[in-house]
């Protein structure tokens, strides 16, 4: 990993075209920021941890907007098992009224968490006393560049991928063959993200893009034209 300033990255982007760039500085920054945002969305590259105090008898907790999504949650350093709202409703319809003081077969500490939305989770059972600590590890909001001196902490191999995606975005306005010619950059970007996050490969859209599921969507052997280029040329 290395810290690259935005001015360095912008220079690297300009080096991708021989002639005068066909974009202005703001446009280039927007395109690179889109690359960062999409990369973080796909790979969860930037992480952070937040802590929340538990409130007596409360099972619903809101997360900070500085966290894009949550991955792991502990209660007083003991892990909570991920579950789902439907699982809780189907498996234990009284869960909303149960706390760590309920007794019987209800645990004496929270043991499950369930996502409700990006910024809302349930825990079960609710902490009857409160004052405990929920520690949430997750993916941070993406650091974007604004000023020339702003830095991005990223590896050289990932930077190359992000520059390719940026060029793809910048070429969108040209349309036609010029845009189609940058489609491999987007394919490479998706492949790079999938290398870091195998779950992407379970996405039907990713599999369709890459022609992984259907033989008739694989590139033609004789033309070597990938699916995305076929789409953009109106052949898909």
């Amino acid at each position: 990993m290395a810290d690259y300033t935005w001015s360095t990255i912008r220079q690297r982007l300009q080096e991708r075209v021989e002639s005068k760039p066909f974009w202005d500085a703001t446009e280039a920054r927007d395109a690179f920021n889109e690359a960062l945002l999409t990369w973080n969305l796909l790979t969860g590259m930037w992480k952070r941890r937040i802590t929340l105090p538990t409130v007596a008898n409360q099972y619903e907790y809101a997360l900070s907007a500085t966290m894009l999504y949550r991955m792991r949650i502990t209660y007083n350093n003991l892990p909570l098992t991920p579950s789902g709202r439907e699982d809780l409703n189907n498996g234990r319809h009284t869960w909303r009224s149960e706390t760590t003081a309920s007794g019987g077969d209800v645990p004496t500490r929270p043991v499950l968490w369930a996502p409700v939305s990006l910024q809302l989770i349930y825990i079960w059972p609710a902490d009857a006393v409160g004052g405990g600590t929920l520690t949430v590890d997750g993916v941070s909001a993406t650091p974007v560049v604004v000023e020339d001196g702003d830095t991005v902490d990223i590896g050289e191999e990932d930077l190359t991928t992000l520059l390719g995606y940026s060029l793809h975005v910048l070429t969108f306005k040209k349309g036609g063959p010029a845009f189609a010619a940058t489609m491999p950059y987007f394919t490479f970007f998706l492949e790079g993200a999938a290398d870091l996050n195998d779950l992407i490969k379970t996405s039907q859209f990713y599999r369709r893009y890459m022609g992984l599921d259907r033989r008739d969507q694989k590139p033609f052997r004789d033309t070597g034209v990938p699916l995305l280029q076929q789409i953009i040329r109106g052949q898909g």
Partner: protein
Amino acid sequence: MATTDQALMQQLQYSLLEPPNGGQTWPSGVWTRDEVLNIANQRQNTLLHDTMLLVGAANVAVLASASRIDLPTDCIRLVTVVWRGSVVRELLRSDSFEADHMISTWEDTDTVAPLVYMEEEAPLGQVQIGPAPIGAGTLDLLYVPLGTVLNGNGEILVVPDELMPVVKYGALVDLLQKDGRGQDLGRAQYCEHRFNMGVEIAKLILEGWA
């Protein structure tokens, strides 16, 4: 979440070869400012509706024997309906066909706590619960609210910044499909794929991948 509608509009201008000025003017005459704003609003709300990324909460008082309840005016999709009376219970989603066959007296006989909620037969803006409760109580609603209306004056998108490009590509679908000089069905199809992919990714991250 700090992307403004002006930033979004400017990115659309760059993509459509319009002079960038925060979406204030569209001198090509192919698209108008209001048209682009309307499309951006529609796409943001579609993204919210399809993914249930962000939810709002409301507590609605229910009178005894009441079965049709008004929903919040900004509700575009119900996520959960919880009955709070003498017992607390999350109501299951159902419909009148199912209710008629399971409990044929559900509309005639009240109960301590409703079992199900139904949207199909209720008028727009209302939800029906069944059987109706004997006593008064409240419904805790979790629902997907409409996004902040983007008016081009610096409103902030409600979706996370990471999903702003999804709204952008969604808007580009509609703008590039428009019959006229700006039509480009190839790029519109590409943008449709990007929008759909964004919706699917948003659904996946709700479960916390990575």
